[in-house]
């Protein structure tokens, strides 16, 4: 299998000028993700798990080190040095991010949320609508909810919408930041099935899970974090 993502010696800290604070979040992280793999990250709260994913998505500016990604469009690219426009392209077409929180434009229905992700990629509205409906039924979001606003959804419904929005783009790399955090057991099992399904379809995933048991038998490799380092 080819390497899809190769994180080398990644560092990130935060300087909070007004609070005169300096926070070391991660130090010297090395993570390798091959095509088609599901890689897990575990560790205590505050150990730096989300920081890694946010550096990959460039919500955080990586400080030191490199994040080599094998892009369909750009070839090998170091995400830590990519331009904003390159990142926007990668987010639109190749890299998805799913957390337990659903952030959507206000006054946008569930179906529109997924539809817009397709329109962003440059498709027309009819095709977007078709794909959105396909995804929402695929991930079993109740059809009664399609034309409602997601702010009223339950945790599980929000998550399914979140995943539908990310997956409708068929990303090559999916980043999962504790998607199951606020779910009950039944919903968690559903998510597990969903991830298995994505994996069988060939999606490469890098996921954070609090609950190690949940990852058993699911991931190809597991990294454990402690105080900003992989142990």
């Amino acid at each position, binding site marked *: 299998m080819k390497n899809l993502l190769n994180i080398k010696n990644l560092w990130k800290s*935060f300087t*909070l*000028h*007004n609070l005169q604070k300096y926070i070391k979040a991660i130090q010297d992280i090395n993570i390798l993700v091959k095509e088609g793999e599901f890689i897990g990250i575990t560790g205590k709260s505050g150990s730096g798990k989300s920081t890694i994913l*946010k550096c990959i998505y*460039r*919500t*955080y*500016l990586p400080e030191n080190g490199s994040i080599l990604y094998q892009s369909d*469009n*750009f*070839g090998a690219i170091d995400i830590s040095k990519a331009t*904003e*426009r*390159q*990142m*926007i*392209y990668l987010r639109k077409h190749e890299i998805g991010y799913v957390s337990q929180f659903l952030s959507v*434009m*206000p*006054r946008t229905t569930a179906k529109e949320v997924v539809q*817009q992700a397709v*329109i962003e990629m440059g498709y027309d509205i009819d095709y977007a609508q078709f794909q959105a409906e396909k995804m929402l039924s695929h991930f079993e979001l109740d059809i009664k909810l399609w034309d409602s606003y997601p702010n009223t959804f339950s945790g599980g419904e929000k998550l399914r919408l979140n995943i539908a929005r990310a997956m409708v783009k068929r990303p090559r790399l999916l980043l999962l930041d504790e998607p199951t955090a606020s779910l009950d057991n039944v919903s968690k099992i559903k998510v597990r099935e969903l991830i298995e399904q994505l994996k069988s379809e060939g999606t490469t995933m890098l996921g954070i899970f609090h609950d190690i048991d949940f990852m058993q038998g699911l991931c190809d490799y597991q990294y454990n974090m402690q105080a900003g380092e992989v142990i």
Partner: protein
Amino acid sequence: MKGFEKPVLEIKNLNKQFGKGCSDCCDINEKKLEKNYCPECGTVYACQDISFELYGGEILGVVGESGSGKSTMMKCLYFDQEVTKGEGYLSSYKDGLMNIFNESSQQKRYIRNHVLGKVYQNPMLGLKMNFSSIGNIAQKLIAAGYRSVRDMESRGIDLLNHVNIPVFRMKEPPKNFSGGMQQRVQIAKALSNNPPVLLLDEVTTGLDLSVQANVLDLIKKIQRELGISMIVVSHDLAVIRMLANRTIVMLDGRIIEKGLTDQILEDPQHPYTQQLVHSLLV
């Protein structure tokens, strides 16, 4: 391989000063002036070396405190004011080969009428308040080369529909309308020449929250459906968060930080940006 796109607008080292400057500030460098003005002669350096690119279909956010030079920059881009120096290139004007700031006033008028649209915070600057609403739109259509009254009327009705102004009210002057409706007429007018670039300066400031939401939805819809590139200026980070893909932060006439909007919000680098983000969260 995709990804080497050309910007629709490129600004290089735009400078705008009010006043002649003196020996103290003339060869201005950062160390000499603490803020954006010279205490000796009172010259205001409202925009200093502003450079950025705007790409097709994107919304570029501009934030910064009052007096940081946001409106001055927008006025320079729309030729409401003349730049002191700087370069600007529009891909849809002479293939982006000519510095628009060096063009003749006739050419600048052409650019305004054909390539740009602008929406002001104060509707009185963008609209004739006593003219009918459709008449306001017709004015810009005439400037853009429309001649037939019937064409103008049908285009005007399309536009008013697009911004949700009931067509039966099109003959009414904007002064009869609420603030939100006035902004929507302004937006219709700005869109009338199908500009590839739309400039929006604090267009929701001062409106009630629900009206504000309505106008923001409209802006988002326009970007989605028409693919127009926009520069959205606001001192309100919440507006920027909702609209912009990328964001520029200005302070004392300079760009102090730029980045993807979520990065600016979650991992701001400059002390001023951190303070700005902090004030949004509390």
